[in-house]
């Protein structure tokens, strides 16, 4: 059980890291600021690669969130902490806005221009919020569940 918890933590950490890395790669910043000049990181300025990697990492995140949610219901014990609720709320917002952006990217789908701008900005703002809250919970060692 302990091993599963550790594995879950690692998968979440790695997925979160790749989502942030490839998410920022959707903006033309890595080439401008020499990051993709670092040997081994050239792919960060390849928009089609970061796009696909962001999708793959999103797949893992969604599967993990569903897995954790159902496992929590099955377990029937434990209390979600305040910071846990905050992170769940932000994650839900990220998944909903991200899913709508994925739908927007499908051929033949036309979403309203204003809605797309709101989704883009919401997705970015929620990502920044999750990074800040996660950093806070990491240094204060606050857990998701008591």
């Amino acid at each position, binding site marked *: 059980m302990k091993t599963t918890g550790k594995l879950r933590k690692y998968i979440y950490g790695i997925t979160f890291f790749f989502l942030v890395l490839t998410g920022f790669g959707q*903006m033309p910043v890595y080439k401008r600021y020499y990051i993709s000049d670092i040997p081994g990181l050239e792919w960060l300025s390849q928009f089609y690669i970061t796009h696909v990697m962001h999708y793959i990492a999103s797949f893992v995140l969604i599967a993990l969130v569903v897995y954790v949610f159902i496992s929590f219901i099955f377990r029937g014990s434990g209390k979600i902490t305040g910071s846990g609720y905050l992170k769940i709320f932000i994650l839900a917002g990220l998944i909903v806005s991200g899913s709508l952006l994925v739908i927007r990217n499908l051929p033949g789908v036309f979403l309203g221009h204003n809605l797309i701008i709101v*989704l883009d900005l919401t997705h970015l703002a929620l990502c920044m919020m999750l990074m800040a809250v996660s950093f806070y919970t990491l240094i204060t060692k606050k857990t998701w569940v008591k």
Partner: protein
Amino acid sequence: MTSRISRRAFLKGSITVAGSVAATSSVARAAKSITKKSSEPLVTLIDISKCIGCEECVYACQEVNEPKFPEPEKPFPKMFPSRVPVQDWSDKRDVTDRLTPYNWLFIQHAFVDIDGEETELTIPRRCMHCANPPCVKLCPWGALKQEDNGLSRIDSDLCLGGSKCKSVCPWNIPERQTGSGMYLNILPSLAGNGNMHKCDRCYNRLEKGEQPACIEICPEDVQTIGLKSEILKKAHALVRETNGYIYGELENGGTNTIYVSPVPFDQLNKSIEKGKGKPHLKKVENMMANGTNIAKAMLIAPIAGIAAAFGKFYLSSQEDK
């Protein structure tokens, strides 16, 4: 310069006259029919064999789109880091032999062998208006828009000039002008670099029931615009009639611009001058296909999560026994 001004003045007059004629002719009826609400996108057919390379479309495009052109503020903000290129076309607005922020359509020249005779073919080039445009879909700010009539365009009020749209465009169509746009009000030295510009298929004219300027002005009727199914039917009939070749129907998963040529497009591609602001005519695979396939597979993600949770529950219940 004098001849240029008079030519532009002449073209301006021509457009006005053409507009007046159009209002009372079948052209107006056609223009109205292309604005009617339909689930089908509008597609343009470009018959290369008809083009005489007169560049009237080029000047008409410049004329009607002049109000949309950038008016950059100078001197430009100092860019950081220094590798960020300043791209300034504001003093070269008369350039017509390539795509620029001030020239959204140009004529490409190809010299090919037709029936043993070297022939010059001229090809109007501009944005292809892809059916699933990577420039629109991958813009991180939603600064590019795709209308439900199939055209894609850049919103100059929102564009920061990062040039991602150019990088992801299979033909590298959009062109940048430094020194204009919203980035000047944010962190001009650190983020953004102006505005991107490209053909918007005269969306404002289409809204009024008018045809795009390049189509309306053409003395040879090189371009036809209409509903996708009708235009594709016409294009294939033309290919059969002339033993011709088609481009744009399958490129990048399909575009809303169809070229028909009397010679294969790989021959045209070999002959045309390619490079900055001068797009190729190569076959293009569907650049968004990988993303689309993974997006469809994403539907399985919640099922995978449910299966893993039930699997874990089942295994632990077996262990408890």
